[in-house]
């Protein structure tokens, strides 16, 4: 008997009588309100260490980034054409070459008000490491793309096919040393969310 057969046989013999799978309807009895959801998202994501900016154009984002960072001689990467004046596109085959990325700017699909997370999957970018390797990360979020809860978030992606996707909520962080919060554990030291 293979281990698979052995495990499956043991599980079958051990598992109790079938119990019902509960309905999730209860969690969809919410009032959707775009303005409130956006306000809650901004409050939450700032609370967990990100910065947010309400902008009307990509030019405004570029101006803000140039004000926040000294980008001279630094590597800035974005798959978005709108940032071609300050950023290169990553097309390489070896992602180790991203190790010196200072700033990466990525689009997002939507954000979640209750926890400040943004969802991004590989329909919007093809190198997974880009979320983690830069010193600083910036997201672009369309202002109407905010859902109130994780239930609504999964409603959006329930049937979607992707190879990789992630909820990202704030900059990388740790509190492993005496519970003191430090931003920039292994991933980005800062996260900016530009709401356009």
């Amino acid at each position: 008997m293979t281990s698979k057969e052995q495990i499956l046989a043991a599980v079958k013999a051990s598992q109790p009588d079938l119990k019902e799978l509960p309905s999730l309807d209860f969690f969809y009895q919410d009032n959707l309100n775009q303005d409130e959801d956006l306000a809650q998202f901004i409050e939450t994501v700032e609370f967990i260490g990100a910065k947010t900016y309400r902008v009307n154009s990509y030019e405004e984002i570029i101006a803000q980034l140039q004000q926040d960072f000294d980008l001279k001689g630094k590597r800035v990467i974005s798959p978005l054409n709108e940032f071609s004046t300050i950023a290169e596109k990553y097309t390489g085959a070896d992602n180790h070459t991203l190790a010196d990325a200072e700033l990466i700017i990525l689009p997002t699909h939507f954000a979640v008000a209750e926890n400040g997370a943004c969802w991004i999957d590989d329909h919007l970018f093809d190198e997974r490491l880009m979320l983690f390797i830069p010193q600083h990360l910036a997201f672009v979020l369309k202002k109407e793309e905010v859902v109130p809860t994780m239930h609504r978030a999964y409603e959006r992606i329930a049937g979607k096919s992707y190879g990789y996707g992630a909820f990202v909520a704030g900059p990388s962080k740790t509190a492993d040393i005496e519970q003191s919060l430090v931003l920039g554990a292994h991933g980005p030291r800062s996260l900016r969310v530009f709401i356009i």
Partner: protein
Amino acid sequence: MKVADHAQRAKEFNKDEKRVDWHDETLWFIRQKRDRASHNIPQWEELRNTASQIKNHTLSNLHHYLQEFERNAQANGVTIHWAANAEEHNNIILKLLQERNISQMVKSKSMLTEECHLNDFLGDHGIEVIDSDLGERIVQLAKEPPSHIVLPCIHKKKEEIGELFHEHLGTPKGSADPQLLTEAARQSLRNVFLTRKAALTGVNFAIAETGEFVVCTNEGNADMGVHLADIHIASMGIEKLIPQRRHLGLFLRLLTRSATGQPITTYSSHFAKPAKGKAMHIILVDNGRSRQLGRPDFRASLKCIRCSACFNTCPVYRRSGGHSYNAVIAGPIGSILSPNFDMKKHADLPFASTLCGSCSNVCPVKIDIHDQLYKWRQVIVQEGYADPKKTVAMQVMAKTLASPTMYRIAGKAARTTLKYAPFVVNNKLNAWYLHRDMPEVPKSSFGEWYSKNRKNND
């Protein structure tokens, strides 16, 4: 069985009274953050109920979901392995690495690999494993096991970490600033991530419907390792399955709020398919889980999502420290899981509890933790692993540890104990009150308390 094992190990920890108070307060602070986070969610109880039912359902249909998961993961281009026990799990990993001539691996948090003692096994075969979660890296450098499933080095003071980093990472002597120490670890581990060809991660949730799995971290260490490596190996217990992707909505709402009071971890990464040119392997591990599934009284322990809320709230854990449990998973849930692995070795753990029920009240998947601890006591006594008289003594000790009043009077009480239960003293009950000034108490108080306790627990 040495009945006071847990107590003896707590002795080391309790030598330094200030440290015990600090440990206690730190964890209580986290418990309070959990309370605030959960009170912000009006549907919290419905979330717990529904998550509990989803887990109950999954366990009752696990045979089906395991196969569904395998089919869908394989269709995604992932290789699935099945490991009946720790040895098989470790050998699968060794083979995957040896086939590729890899002698160094980076690993993110995985309690399962702790359970399988993977690092030691691979080390014996000439393969170096570096733990990348900061807390795990710290205990790895200290050559200690994690003392907490979410906060592996919660027992360590920053000065001790400063010393370790001075020795291993070259930070200035005497520096204990968390910011500086974290930066040093960041630099050192970045180099590790960039040079490793294999990365291992744990799994928080696996989705039968899609064949994908989710890994939650705050640091980003799991993803840094995985995306820079050629091969990603994910180790998961067979109980990690949930039926559908949308069920994640509930579990991700509950997990981190219960753990640290954060609304969600920084990263909740969904791994469905390997990246171009890379390999992804998942090892499905039983290692005693199907046996636990077959125990009606204890199968609910398999619902655990490892949030650690029951640790943070437990008065015995907070005052005895994770290492006193001498088990891979400490705390209340560890005291239920461990006897399943080795009833003899861990016979003391179900007694290291006051059965106050605080654990069951905070558990996000509504495991009846304290009831199961009580049931384990019956089993352990019936199976002859404990002398019933001695087990009462363990309960006395747990109560003592948990109650400030009892803790204070324990000195006198223990002397009284000589009359009633000399075995307690032979087994060093004093572990819990050593180095404390004990006020005088009336002679009768322990006896009264003892007989009352017996009535409650016999």
